[in-house]
């Protein structure tokens, strides 16, 4: 019962707000280029369905590719750091520099270097930079967090470094990695959107560009439709990663246990 309510209440609230919004726009005769009614947004969505879906696909594929590369690269580099302190000392500061430099500031440079004819590669790199660091730093922390007594026990039984890494450090790091992935999945989307904004006119074809374009033409309803899709995409990514976390951890990890209880 409480579970059903927990789902129903926010949905009911959403419907109520949409209804009030519709009524208010109608009653006060608000101009559609200031605030379109939900029904107008829906009409714009249906009317531009094909182009919006193409844009959704562009943004989605850049986001997912950047995210996948961030996970692979972040984990690989974290494993390398865990195996060699000198490598960590040499590279970590640069990873931090990459992280703290605002991505909007480097984006134009990356786009120029990669070239407008390969704009999607440039967008991918920008989104990757944003998504990469949480994976690296959390996985590094996770690999270091292995129980010291367990490490002693592994050594007592003559375990190799590879065995300690695969049977102890990586499983220890898994909850850290999954937590980072939830942050990073959202960041990859933000990175992709920011990159599209920076790339600007005529080149990028993702959802962010549809928003800019619709804004320029005062097609505010279409803008809202694209914005709604963008939110839906972010929500879908978050839920997919939450599900993954649950699927991998619910048997043994405390965080997942509490959620289930």
């Amino acid at each position, binding site marked *: 019962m409480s579970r059903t309510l927990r789902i129903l209440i926010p949905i009911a609230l959403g419907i109520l707000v949409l209804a009030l919004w519709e009524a208010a726009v109608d009653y006060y005769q608000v101009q559609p280029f200031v605030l379109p009614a939900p029904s107008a947004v829906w009409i714009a969505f249906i009317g531009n369905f094909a182009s919006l879906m193409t844009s959704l696909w562009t943004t989605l594929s850049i986001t997912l590719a950047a995210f996948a590369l961030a996970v692979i690269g972040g984990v690989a580099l974290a494993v390398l750091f865990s195996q060699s302190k000198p490598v960590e000392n040499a590279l970590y500061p640069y990873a931090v520099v990459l992280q703290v430099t605002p991505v909007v500031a480097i984006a134009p440079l990356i786009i120029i270097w990669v070239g407008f004819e390969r704009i999607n590669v440039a967008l991918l790199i920008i989104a990757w930079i944003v998504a990469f660091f949480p994976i690296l730093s959390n996985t590094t922390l996770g690999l270091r967090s292995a129980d010291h007594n367990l490490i002693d*026990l592994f*050594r*007592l*039984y003559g375990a190799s470094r590879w*065995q300690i890494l695969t*049977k102890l450090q990586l*499983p220890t790091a*898994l909850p850290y990695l999954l937590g980072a992935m939830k942050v990073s999945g959202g960041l990859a989307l933000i990175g992709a959107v920011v990159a599209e904004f920076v790339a600007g006119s005529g080149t990028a074809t993702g959802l962010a560009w549809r928003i800019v374009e619709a804004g320029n033409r005062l097609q505010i309803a279409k803008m809202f439709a694209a914005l709604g899709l963008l939110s839906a995409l972010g929500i879908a990514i978050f839920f997919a990663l939450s599900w993954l976390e649950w699927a991998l951890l619910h048997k*043994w990890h405390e965080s997942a246990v509490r959620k289930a209880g």
Partner: protein
Amino acid sequence: MAKRFESGLEAIRRLDLEVADGEFVSLVGPSGCGKSTALRVIAGLLAPSEGTVAFPGGRPEIGFVFQEPTLMPWADALGNARLPLELKGVSRAEAEGRAKRALERVGLAGFEEAYPRELSGGMKMRVSIARALAAGPKLLLMDEPFAALDELTRQALNDDLLKLWREDGLTVLFVTHSVFESTYLSTRVVVMSPRPGRVFDDIALTQPAQRDEHYRMTAEFGREAARVSKALREAIEEGSE
């Protein structure tokens, strides 16, 4: 044997100890007397700064039980008990069989697929002991294994440990700060004094072959415990001077 850490901390000044096959030796002493360090040096996890640890007949198979159960939370009881065999490259089928028997011996038959979070403190410690037994050790090193458990669980585990010790002909080195536990379990109690650690007294106990609930209540047990207790008190006084 002596151990001084790189930080300059002198953990053990002099530990001269000879343990015969099949003995149950408790190391008793206040905190800071280097008991745990001694176990780690004997296990080969730390190198002694001076002296040696010698095993006539070669280094035996060693089992180690920590103060905490120290289980892998992502593996079930069987997976945890199987670990030493897995690391040694024993085939999976054989490792499973041996780990399963080890779990049965500590009273956990039927809990093979339980994850650590589903087990009580005492049961987790039993898994930890099963893991130490799985590889068939000759020497069992235990570092205050039951310190965090309630009294009843602790007594049950003490009795089970004695049974395993007798059945397997194990040699046990047991670190504790409990006078009663060491008196109940051991054939011999080594009392250490703190900062830096050294052997203060070495007490051979006269123990009945069968120790159980009743033995804990006898005057004989009381006398033996009093001997250990007195030596420990003197060791602490000496350490604080």
